[in-house]
Structure formats: C-alpha cells, structure tokens
C-alpha cells in the first residue's frame, strides 16, 4: 500500500514537472491580457539603458516589437512615430524593441538600428533585445507586435496585444485604429473593447 502511495506521488511529481517546464505545451509562453509585464533594461540607439521604471510620470506604455528588415514593420514606421507623438504627452510613450538576432538578420544590427532611427527621426527609444531575453517573456512572435501596458501601483498590466490598425498597406484606408482605441479607452478608465487583434508579420528570429 505504501509502495503504491510512493509510486503515485512520483507520477504526480513527474506530471507536474512535465507541464511546468514545457512552456509551449501550456499558456505560460508570453502574456495574456491582465498579466503583469516584466520590466527590462535594454540599450537604446543613443547608447543609454532604458527601463520602464525610469518613466515616473507615465500612465502606461506602448511596447512595440519592431525591426528594420520586416516590410510590415517598415510600413508602420510613420504610424508608430504618430502614436508616440499623440500619446507621449498623454503619459503613454512608445517604447520600441528590436527582438531579432542580428547575426541572423544583419539588417537589424545595432548600428543599422541607429541609422534607421536617425533617418526616420524616431521620437521614441529604439531598444535592442540583446540576447533575446525580453520578447519571449512577452510572447511576441512577429514584428510589428504591440503590447499596451497600464501602469498601476504594483506593476504594469497588459491591456492590449496585437496590431496597430486594420490596414497595413494604406494608412488612409484604415477603418479600425485598434491601438488608438485601446489607449483612449484605457486613459478614460473604460474597459477595452477589442483587447487582442491579429496581423501578418515577420517571425522574430
């Protein structure tokens, strides 16, 4: 009888371990709406280290995984700048993170990021996820991939995950401004009507 109990315990332990350490098999990979998002300390194109904690007066953040080399990311560059210009003054700055491995994508090297930020006149930090430690925690799979965080007393809560709007190819043909709607609703203290959206993007590598 005792042996059976021990055996049973062993099986439970093995099962728990199997599930606990295989994030792809569970929902543990990346954030869901309502999760607390981790802070980070990543290098900006100006050489300074940036973390969310430095923004004392922020009400939230638009953390956007983007890069130089993805046509979709490039198509959205001007719209990302516009988001920063619209919402930074309202307490929700854009924080752009480049998640790719520059050894696999030379066009996303730190120096190329600096060039791109300079050429486009990025008004927001453009950070490199060196060692690729941050994007897996967020669960970003592609560029561009937006996470709207709301700053609370005890951390930053994920309020929206997804696309910037519903038309990558033509900013003038956009019908639904997903991110703007989400930020506006968050700032107004309203529930966010569309919390996740999807768009085609370039796999993060």
């Amino acid at each position, binding site marked *: 009888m005792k042996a059976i109990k021990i055996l049973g315990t062993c099986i439970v332990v093995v099962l728990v371990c199997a599930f606990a350490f295989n994030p792809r098999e569970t929902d543990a990979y990346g954030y869901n709406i309502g999760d607390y998002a981790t802070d980070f300390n990543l290098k900006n194109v100006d050489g300074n280290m940036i973390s969310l904690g430095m923004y004392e007066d922020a009400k939230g953040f638009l953390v956007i995984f983007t890069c130089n080399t*993805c*046509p979709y990311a490039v*198509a959205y560059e001007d719209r990302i700048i516009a988001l920063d210009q619209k919402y930074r003054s309202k307490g929700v700055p854009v924080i752009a993170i480049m998640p790719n491995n520059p050894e*696999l*994508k030379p066009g996303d090297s730190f120096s190329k990021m600096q060039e791109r930020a300079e050429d486009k006149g990025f008004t927001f930090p453009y950070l490199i996820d060196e060692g690729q430690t941050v994007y897996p925690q967020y669960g970003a*799979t*592609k560029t561009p*991939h937006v996470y709207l965080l709301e700053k609370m007393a005890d951390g930053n809560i994920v309020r929206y995950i*997804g*696309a910037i709007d*519903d*038309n*990558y*190819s*033509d900013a003038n*043909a956009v019908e*639904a401004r*997903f991110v703007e709607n989400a930020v506006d609703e968050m700032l107004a203290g309203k529930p966010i009507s569309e919390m996740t*959206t*999807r*768009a*085609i*993007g*370039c*796999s*993060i*590598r």
Partner: protein
Amino acid sequence: MKQLILIVLVLALGCRSEKKVEQSLLSATEAPSKDTREVEMPIEVFDFEGLKPLLHQTDDKIHVINFWATWCAPCIKELPYFERVGQEQAGTVEVTLVSLDMPGMWKKQLLPFIEKKKLQSTVVVLDDPKQNIWIPQIDDNWSGAIPATLIYTKNQRRFYEKPFTYEELVAEIDTFK
C-alpha cells in the same frame, strides 16, 4: 519576355490553368475597379473570400497550404521541401503556395522569384489587408507570423505556425493518410 513568363506560369499552374487564363482575359477586358495591377498579374490574386474555396476542398487529396512571402527568409528556406513533397507525392498531395507579398513586390520580387526557382506548385497571392478578420478564420491560434502551413483533408485539418524540415513535413503529411 512577359509572354514567356505567362506561358511558364500557366504550365506550372497545371489543371486550373484554363480557368486562370479565362479569368485574366476576362479581367483584362473589363474596366479595372480600383487599379490595374491585378490585370497584369499572371497568377491569381485573391482576397480572403476568394481564397476560401482553396482551404475547403472536399476531394480525396491531402491539401498542403503554405503561407509565405519572398521577404520571409525562413519561408524561402522551407519552400523547396514543399516543392519536393508536391512532386514526390503528386496525385496524393496537392501543394498550394499562398504568397503574402505586398502589391508593390509582385512584379519586382514575386514573379521573378517564381521564374528563377521554377516553382512547380500552384502559387496564388492573398491580398487582403483586413488581416484581423481572416487570420482567425484560417486558424484561431495563428498569431499572424509566417511561415505558417495548413494541412487538411476532407476529414481533418491542422495548422502549424512554424517552419518545417523536409522530414518533419513528410512525417506530418503521413499522419493524414
């Protein structure tokens, strides 16, 4: 030169070629609705509603629908495996390569790529910016990253948001037999 590309593509597109030629002739004679880019395309350009029938065929084949683009390096890497499977298992497996290249890339990148690589599988373009509407209709768990592949028969279907090796692809297709 353009005619040559057209002929090569029509041959490569196989059994559906007649319909395509008819359609391209038809659209060439009709007044273009928004712009003229589709008229000059020798391969089919669909919006999602147009693509849908290809995702729900009820014959006895195993349909492999690969979502790719010329700018997607992991897609280009796995493309030869899809080509190889389509040729080795012709009759059993039908491979369709759905390009998500943007309109500005069709002539500059996509058509030259198809010609250079002599792609044998059917290539179509999905041009539908309302991605938030159609992505979940292809698979509810698809984040939108490519490469991505749908494999289906009339009885079962599975979706893969990942790149394949040749061996993995063959093994996965075998599970549908």
